[in-house]
C-alpha cells in the first residue's frame, strides 16, 4: 500500500495513463483514416479491381513522403496544423495529432499489404458468381484480410507506444517523458527501470491479445 501511494508510483501510473490516452486515440484515428488510402491503393494497384496507374503512383508517393519524415521532425513541422486543430501545440491531447499523422501512412501501407494478400483466385471466384466490385471489396478483400489487418493494428499500437515517448519529450507527458525527465536527467534509475518494465509488460500484453484474436478470427 505504501508502495502504491509513493510519489514514484503515482507519477508513473499517471504517466502510463497519459501514454494509453495518446496511443488509444491516435491508433483509433489512424486506423480509420489509414483504411481509406489503403482501400484506394488496393483497388487501383496493377493487380486490383480497378487498376489506375496514375492514382496508385501518386497516392503511393504521398504515403512514402509522409513515411520518410522522422517522427520528431514531423512533430515540429505540423505544429501550425496541430494548433489549428486542437488550439495548442503542446500537451497530451495535442500530441495525438502528430502521432495520428505519422501513423496514417504506416497503417495505410500495412492495410494495403494485408488486403493485397487476398487470394486472387477467390476474387475471381466471387466475380464468376456475379459479385459487384463493391461486394468483392467488402465480402472478399476486407473480410478475408481482417486477421492480417488486426496483426497490423498490433504492430501500429506497439510502434505508437515508442512514438508517444518521443512526443512526451515535447510536452506530451506519458511514460517516455517520465523516463527522460526523472530517470535520465535526475539520475533516478528506479524511475527508468519501472518505466521500462511497464512498457515491456504493456507490449507483451498487446501482442498476446493480438495473437489470441488472430487465431480466433482466422
Amino acid at each position, binding site marked *: 500500500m505504501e508502495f502504491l501511494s509513493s510519489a514514484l508510483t503515482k507519477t508513473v501510473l499517471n504517466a502510463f495513463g497519459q501514454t494509453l490516452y495518446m496511443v488509444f486515440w491516435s491508433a483509433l484515428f489512424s486506423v480509420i483514416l489509414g483504411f481509406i488510402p489503403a482501400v484506394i491503393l488496393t483497388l487501383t494497384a496493377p493487380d486490383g479491381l480497378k487498376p489506375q496507374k496514375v492514382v496508385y503512383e501518386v497516392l503511393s508517393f504521398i504515403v512514402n513522403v509522409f513515411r520518410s519524415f522522422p517522427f520528431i521532425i514531423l512533430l515540429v513541422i505540423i505544429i501550425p496544423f496541430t494548433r489549428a486543430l486542437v488550439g495548442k501545440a503542446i500537451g497530451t491531447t495535442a500530441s495525438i495529432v502528430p502521432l495520428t499523422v505519422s501513423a496514417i501512412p504506416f497503417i495505410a501501407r500495412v492495410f494495403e499489404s494485408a488486403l493485397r494478400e487476398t487470394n486472387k*483466385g477467390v476474387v*475471381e471466384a*466471387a466475380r*464468376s*458468381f456475379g459479385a*459487384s466490385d463493391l*461486394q468483392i471489396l467488402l465480402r472478399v478483400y476486407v*473480410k478475408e484480410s481482417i486477421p492480417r489487418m488486426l496483426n497490423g493494428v498490433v504492430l501500429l499500437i506497439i510502434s505508437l507506444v515508442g512514438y508517444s515517448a518521443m512526443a512526451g519529450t515535447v510536452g506530451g507527458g506519458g511514460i517516455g517523458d517520465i523516463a527522460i525527465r526523472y530517470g535520465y536527467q535526475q539520475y533516478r534509475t528506479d524511475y527508468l527501470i519501472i518505466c521500462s518494465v511497464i512498457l515491456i509488460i504493456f507490449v507483451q500484453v498487446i501482442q498476446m491479445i493480438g495473437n489470441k484474436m488472430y487465431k480466433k478470427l482466422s
Partner: protein
Amino acid sequence: MIKIHELEKSFKDVSVLKGVSITIKDSEIYGIVGQSGAGKSTLLRCINGLESFESGYVEVDGTKVDVKDKVALKNLRRRMGMIFQGFNLLERLDVYDNIALPLKFWGIKTNTEESRKKILDLIELVGLSEKVHAKPRELSGGQKQRVAIARALVLDPEFLLCDEATSALDPEITKGILALLQKINKELGITIIVVTHQMEVVKQICNKVAFLSGGKVLAEGKPEEMFIQPRIPEIKAFLHDRSEILPDYGVNIQLFFTGEGSMEPIVTMMARELDEDFSICWAKIEDFRDELHGSLVINAKEEDEERICSFLDKKNVSWEVLK
C-alpha cells in the same frame, strides 16, 4: 447451347486464342483438352466474361456475351457456376457460409427456411453433411472441391465451368470428384465444360472434346475417336505413349478396337484363320465412360503384311502399320 465462333484473344503481344470455334450442346460434358499454355483456361473464361476477347463471338443460347454490358454479364454469370484448380474458398467462412456466399451476392436472404434447405441439400449432394461448419483449412483437397462444387450450384446454374478442377488432386480423389460431376450432369441436367490436361478426366466423363494446341482447335469430336487412334502429331505428343520399343525386324501393325469390336477375340481368330505366328508387342485397354476401347501392336513377318491387313479390313478392325 454455347457457340464460340472464330474467337481471338491476345495478352499484350502474345496471341493466346487464334480463331477458336466450338459448339457445346446442352447436357453435354464437354472437354477442352490440351497441354499447358494451349489457351484452354482463357477460352473457358471467355465464356463467362472473366476474360474479354478481340474478335469473334461467344453465344449462349443465341445471346452474344458482351463484357461491356455489366448487367447482362452479371445475369449470365448467374447461369454459370464455376470451379477452379485451387478451389478458391474463403478461408474465414465455414462450409455453409462459403456455399451461401453467391446467394448474398444476389441479395437473396440466407437465413430463410428455403435458403437453409437448399444449402443443406447441396451439402448432402456433395457428401459433406458431417462438415457443415468446418473451415476450409480443416478439409482435404477433395472435400474443398466438393464445397466449391456445392457453391457453384447454389444459384441453380445451367452450366458448370470447371477449370482444371481435379489437377491438384490425387487419382483416387479425382475419380470421386468426376463421379460427382457426372451425377450432377445426369441428375440436374447441367451442361458441364471441363478444361483439363488429364486424360483420366476425358476418359471418365467427357462426351465430346476439343483438342486445343497453340490457341487453335486441332480436333473436335468424341474422345474415343480422337485418342484411341490419334492421327495428329500434337495429340500423339499429348498422349506420349508412343515411346514403347518395337522390334526393328518384320512389320509392326497396330490394331484399334473401339466400341463393340473390342470384345471380339480378333487376335486368336486371326492366328487360326491365317495359320500364322506373330508376337504381341504391347496392348492396352482404356475405359472411356465405362466403355472399353483398346489398341494392340503385333509384329509379323513382312511377307504376311498384306494378308493380315486384308483380314483386319474384313473384320472391320482399324489398323495402322507403324514405321
